[in-house]
Every structure is written in structure tokens, then in C-alpha cells.
């Protein structure tokens, strides 16, 4: 596997979450809109592309999970993030040294009811092509999403 395009290390604290989310959002733009001129100085997020919205949503939930559950909100460990981008996909790995997590124990929520919790992993799993988890140390989350081809435009008859 080639080296990641982006590496990022930060405390496993929610205080740094927005930094990580911003970086992942910009990495998504490299895949979804490679020809667009970036404006990383904009204070607003641009998540109008479904690919960006899906990856950022999933990544943010996994970051939450690490900071809240693996590190118990203590922020006493780090998160190492690596991002690979290709023309049509993104892969993000997150490594932490907190308490391991049992991904298989997370139930699929019943969506015919309104829930006030327990939706984060469901969001991540639903929006990505792959969510893998290997308990550590270090614990490893591997997130993958492929850019869906734009639907073919209907031809104007003939």
C-alpha cells in the first residue's frame, strides 16, 4: 500500500475534533471535485456533495467514539489519522491507544422509533462502503468510500 497522502496526529479529545473533520472534508473534495478551486479559508463547510457529506459524517462519528468511549473523555491519548485518496475513493485510518471496542456488539437501531442515542455507528456503517475495526493496541478503524459514478444523462431521443 502506498504511503498516505495525509497524516495527522492530535490528542484524542473532542476539543480537536473540528480540526480533524476539516482536514477530512478537504481531502474529500480532492476526490469529489478534483477540478474545483479549493477555498480552505472559508469558515463554512461545503458538504453539498453527497460523497463529502457521507465521509465527513461517518468520520466524525468514529472520532466521537474514540474520544468518548476509547479515551473516556479524558483526552489522555492520541489519535493518528492517515488518509489515502485516489481518483474515485478515499480511505481513512484512525489509530488510538484507548480501551478497545466491540463493533459487533453494536445493535442496528430500530428506525421506526425516534432514538436519542446509539446512532453513531449506524450512521458510519450506513454511509460508507466499508467500516473495519481491529482492537489493539493500537485500535484501528479503517473507513472506505468509493465515489459513485454520476448517473448517465438521459439522451434526447433519436
Amino acid at each position: 500500500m502506498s504511503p498516505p497522502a495525509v497524516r495527522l496526529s492530535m490528542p484524542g479529545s473532542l476539543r480537536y475534533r473540528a480540526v480533524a473533520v476539516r482536514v477530512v472534508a478537504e481531502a474529500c473534495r480532492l476526490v469529489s471535485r478534483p477540478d474545483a478551486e479549493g477555498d480552505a479559508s472559508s469558515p463554512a463547510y461545503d458538504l453539498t456533495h453527497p460523497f463529502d457529506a457521507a465521509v465527513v459524517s461517518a468520520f466524525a462519528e468514529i472520532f466521537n467514539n474514540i474520544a468518548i468511549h476509547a479515551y473516556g473523555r479524558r483526552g489522555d491519548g492520541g489519535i493518528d489519522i492517515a488518509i489515502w485518496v485516489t481518483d474515485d475513493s478515499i480511505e481513512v485510518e484512525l489509530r488510538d491507544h484507548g480501551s478497545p471496542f466491540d463493533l459487533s456488539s453494536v445493535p442496528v437501531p430500530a428506525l421506526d422509533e425516534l432514538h436519542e442515542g446509539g446512532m453513531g455507528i449506524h450512521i458510519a456503517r450506513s454511509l460508507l462502503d466499508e467500516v473495519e475495526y481491529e482492537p489493539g493496541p493500537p485500535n484501528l478503524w479503517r473507513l472506505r468510500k468509493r465515489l459513485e459514478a454520476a448517473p448517465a444523462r438521459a439522451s434526447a431521443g433519436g
Partner: protein
Amino acid sequence: MSSENFKVTTTADETRIQVRGMLDVNTAPTLAEAVDELMAKRPARVLVDLTALDIIDSSGVAVLVKLYKGIRAQGGQVQITGARDQPLAIFKLLRMDKVFAL
């Protein structure tokens, strides 16, 4: 009550909550406090305007669900409007777009 991420205004007819920017694990607790204060006043009608909301996560969704369920349990009405882009995608994923009539 207001913060960087939301503003609550009350008129004779309704209470309006405008949410902007990020409603996530970091900002949702402050809105949750405002929701508790609001529910103590038993408002008859609450309008939640998400037009300026850029990103929501499961913590943000949880606060809106708490608001929706709490006010309705008191016999009040809740209308949630203006969700777009990422927040709308999350509501659709969680099948809340139908409940919230988005």
C-alpha cells in the same frame, strides 16, 4: 437564550430556535440545556429553523429528538424546517425526514 450555534426567540405565537453552523457532540449540550429551559415553560408551538445548519452528528440529532418528543409529550407542536445537504442526508438516513416532515 442564545449561543454561537443557536438563537431562541419567543413571540406570542411561537418559540423559534435558529440553529447554525455545527450541531455536534461539542455544541449539542448547550442546546440541550436550552431545550430543558424551554420545556419548563411548556410552549405551545416550537419552530426549529435549520436553514443555517451546516453539519449535524448523532449528538445533535439526539437533542432535536429530545426536543421533538418532549414538547409533543406536553401537548405542544414542533415544526422542524430548512434542513439541507449533510443534515438532511442524516435525517433521511435515520428516517427522521418523514417524522419531522422535512
